[in-house]
């Protein structure tokens, strides 16, 4: 019999167990402190590995076979090859042909290219995905078609779940643009260069078995090694691990939408007028069209004022590289890389430094980079009157996006959501978020094309922009304005059945997503 749901500290009704594993309901920001020791993978013995260090096996199938692939295992992959990834799907294609069932796929993120795993969810090869659910995958899950319950975690939460033993990776299959026969690997070089491999760090350190898959085998040592061969069981050489033009976009594109540009301009003005942006602060903005435009406007301000950012945290883009090269930023720290200019910069510019989420976002680290950031620009699918944020579902109730680093980034000093007030009649500011991903106490400012709302918890910010001429409104005024234009929306209808759990950065359950009621 199913156990009774409990109400967590955010007021959301969540189950005490998910996929047969007991879970902890969300307790509040920084409240959950697990005790004991970190999880450890089994102890290996070096004499079990070839003396000549050559771990190359003939195929991925052989490697999976040697790793003891069987029903119910957890398979992890990383997403540095982005929409050009050819490795993840291959793993499940092989597993399916071998008749393996009920696997758990534990990717660091999924992309449209991964939509084809739906067939392996259908044929029973995969029981569930613990990672991000985008587009068609999100729809599949929302309609209750996945056998197990999806678990969505932030990038940092993924590392946390590995370190505290919530997720035990049986086999990590790690695509590497360059590797040697011992398993040392890096993200640069070769035809499929993706810049860095930071998202794979927890996987190779904590998985029971590690397979490195490369299309660019070099003589030992592959240096500088981002994956250390001492943790690797097998190396597989294939023709292609990815489709280069889909791994990084040639150029990341600034938005052309006049409304988004207006949001970007307002955001930059707000940063300047409020005094948040000044000499020697730190900043992070994403790679979406609006974020890129914000970076460009901020760059202009820095140039005019003669200010410098101490560092920027990326997702690196060419606009950050430009700040670095023109002297308005001292360093770029990179968790991932979005375009070719950044890949080149990483290879050539010593002030462009790989910095993985393992260190930057992880709840079980001794401190996080995100809480040191001064300016954090983020998006959201919904924000509610209490400034709570949603990034995984839209107001229609369907899963649409992963959490990414969003939850982790909320710990910065000034968190700004730069978002449109509505998207083609879809409301963004709502009474209550459809799915709670981040508590409002961590969200400071919402900037839309029709006005700026500052969280009443931030009286200092409210004071700093008083009388500035910026279009300041309350969050309720913004909501009312949107509803006046779009009309008051109906609420989506849900079944009782839970299709996905949303984890907070500490591994507790902050909310769940229920099955969409279809008529």
């Amino acid at each position, binding site marked *: 019999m199913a156990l009774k749901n409990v109400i967590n500290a955010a007021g959301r009704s969540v189950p005490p167990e998910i996929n047969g594993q007991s879970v902890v309901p969300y307790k509040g920001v920084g409240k959950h402190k697990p005790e004991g020791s970190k999880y450890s993978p089994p102890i290996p013995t070096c004499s079990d590995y070839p003396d000549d260090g050559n771990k190359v096996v003939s195929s991925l199938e052989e490697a999976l076979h040697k790793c003891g692939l069987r029903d119910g295992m957890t398979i992890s992959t990383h997403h540095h090859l982005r929409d050009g990834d050819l490795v993840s799907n291959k793993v499940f294609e092989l597993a399916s042909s071998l008749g393996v069932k009920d696997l758990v796929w534990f990717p660091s993120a999924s992309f449209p290219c991964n939509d084809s795993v739906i067939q392996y969810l259908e044929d029973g090869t995969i029981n569930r995905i613990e990672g991000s659910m985008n587009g068609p995958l999100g729809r599949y899950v929302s309609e209750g078609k996945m056998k197990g319950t999806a678990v969505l975690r932030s990038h940092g939460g993924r590392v946390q779940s590995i370190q505290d033993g919530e997720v035990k990776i049986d086999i990590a299959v790690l695509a590497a643009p360059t590797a040697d026969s011992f398993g040392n690997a890096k993200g640069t070089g070769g035809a499929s260069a993706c810049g860095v491999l930071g998202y794979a760090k927890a996987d190779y350190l904590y998985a029971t078995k590690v397979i490195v898959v490369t299309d660019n085998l070099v003589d030992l040592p592959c240096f500088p090694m981002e994956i250390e061969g001492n943790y690797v069981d097998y190396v597989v050489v294939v023709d292609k691990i990815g489709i280069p033009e889909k791994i990084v976009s040639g150029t990341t594109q600034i938005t052309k939408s*006049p409304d988004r540009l207006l949001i970007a301009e307002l955001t930059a003005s707000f940063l300047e007028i409020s005094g948040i942006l000044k000499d020697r602060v730190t900043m992070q903005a994403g790679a979406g069209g609006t974020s890129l435009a914000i970076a460009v406007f901020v760059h202009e301000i820095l140039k005019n004022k003669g200010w410098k950012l101490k560092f920027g945290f990326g997702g690196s883009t060419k606009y950050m590289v430009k700040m670095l090269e023109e002297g308005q930023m001292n360093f770029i720290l990179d968790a991932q890389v979005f375009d070719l200019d950044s890949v080149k910069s990483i290879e050539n510019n010593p002030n462009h430094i790989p910095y993985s989420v393992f260190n930057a976002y992880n709840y079980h680290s001794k401190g996080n980079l995100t809480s040191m950031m001064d300016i954090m620009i983020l998006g959201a699918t919904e924000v509610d009157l209490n400034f709570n944020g949603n990034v995984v579902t839209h107001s*229609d109730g369907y899963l649409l996006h992963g959490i990414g680093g969003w939850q982790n980034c909320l710990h910065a000093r000034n968190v700004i959501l730069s978002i449109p007030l509505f*998207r083609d009649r879809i409301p963004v500011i709502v009474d209550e978020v459809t799915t709670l991903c981040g508590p409002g106490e961590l969200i400071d400012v919402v900037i839309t094309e*029709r006005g700026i709302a500052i969280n009443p918890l931030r009286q200092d910010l409210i004071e700093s922009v008083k009388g500035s001429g910026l279009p300041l409104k309350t969050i309720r005024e913004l909501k009312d304005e949107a509803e006046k234009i779009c*009309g008051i*929306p*109906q609420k*989506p209808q849900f079944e009782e059945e839970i299709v996905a759990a949303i984890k907070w950065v500490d591994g507790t359950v902050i909310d769940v997503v229920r099955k969409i009621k279809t008529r």
Partner: protein
Amino acid sequence: MIKTIAIAGNSGTKVRSDCEIVLELKTEGGINIDLTSKVKVLYGESIKNLVVEVLDFFGAKHANIKINDSGALPFVIAARMEAAVKQLINSNLEYLPGFLKENSYTTTRDRFRFSRLYLPGNTPGLMINAGLHSADGIILDLEDSVAPEKKDEARILVRNALRQINFCGAERMVRINQGERGLEDLHFVIPHNVNLVLIPKCESADYIKQVEVVIAAIKMKLNLKNKVFLMPIIESALGIENSFEIARGSENVVAIAIGLEDYTADLGVPRTIEGKESFYARTRLVVAAKAAGIQPIDSVFSDVADMEALKQNVLVSKSLGFEGMGCIHPRQVSVIKLGFAPDKTDIEKARKIVLAFETAKLKGLGVVALGSKMIDPPVVARAQKIIDLAIRLNLISSAWMHEVTPIELKTLK
């Protein structure tokens, strides 16, 4: 044969905030709605209710309706429904959405018309947020940006937009079509508080008078008191030759604009960036406008990606005497506004001249000098114009003369 199926609106992968409606009127079977919409979960019921309400308004009891919606707002759906119904039923009824009280403002003859943003009259996605970009005027265009087969539905959409979209204080303008159709357009827009009508390809004062007669008749019939200003657009050699008469065509003409794409086509020469071929026309139009005491407005700049070229273009335009320019993209607005406004050096120079003049007047001196230079009266008059402009644009305080320091006064000597 009587038409029984009508299609109105737009759909497609790039279409946003619009809908396409396929309407089939029947004699039995009630009303059947087949709705495809990205916002079905959120607004499905309200869309269906609206459709039924519009059909009921026009007395249609039996119909099959197929809607392909990309997030259209209610006033858009209503406009598309009305347009579809009117293809099948002859009706003078109008299904009018509520008129926003924020939209009932009037404008004045001499307000700034530096920037006015063109919006294609049948593309609702571009209209909704247009008022946020701080253009002096918003033009809902029924003419060149609307495909011939979409002209009828655009009228209804523009009418509803005038009632339902808050343009945030921008002057509410409509560009009508040419000739008879243009006069018909007026019936759809004038009752909904249009501040200014743009008259395209204007070649004679006579047409201005025809427009005036129609507007006056509509206003009288509906007892409307609001001013409707006119801005003829000159786009041909004949129009240029008649520009002074056009400028004086009615007391409601507050500006004349030039349209260079059509003008250069009329001359049979290519339009160039430096614009030598249109130099005569532009200066002629400026002179005609100034002689008639109205604002001369320059042609649009079509390269929306090149802001630097736009800026240069604005500076040339300003130096010829133009007082505004059309915008075809919201990002052009601020460049144009900044360009036509006096810059710091202009204001500083004008301040000094006006101060010197006032000081001389106080001392009873007949001759005004600044440093060792004599200043002629027209120079003073021009400086005063710049100061007035700067005050109206909030670039300097209206009490600036009282804020002059004794030290500065000394330097004038």
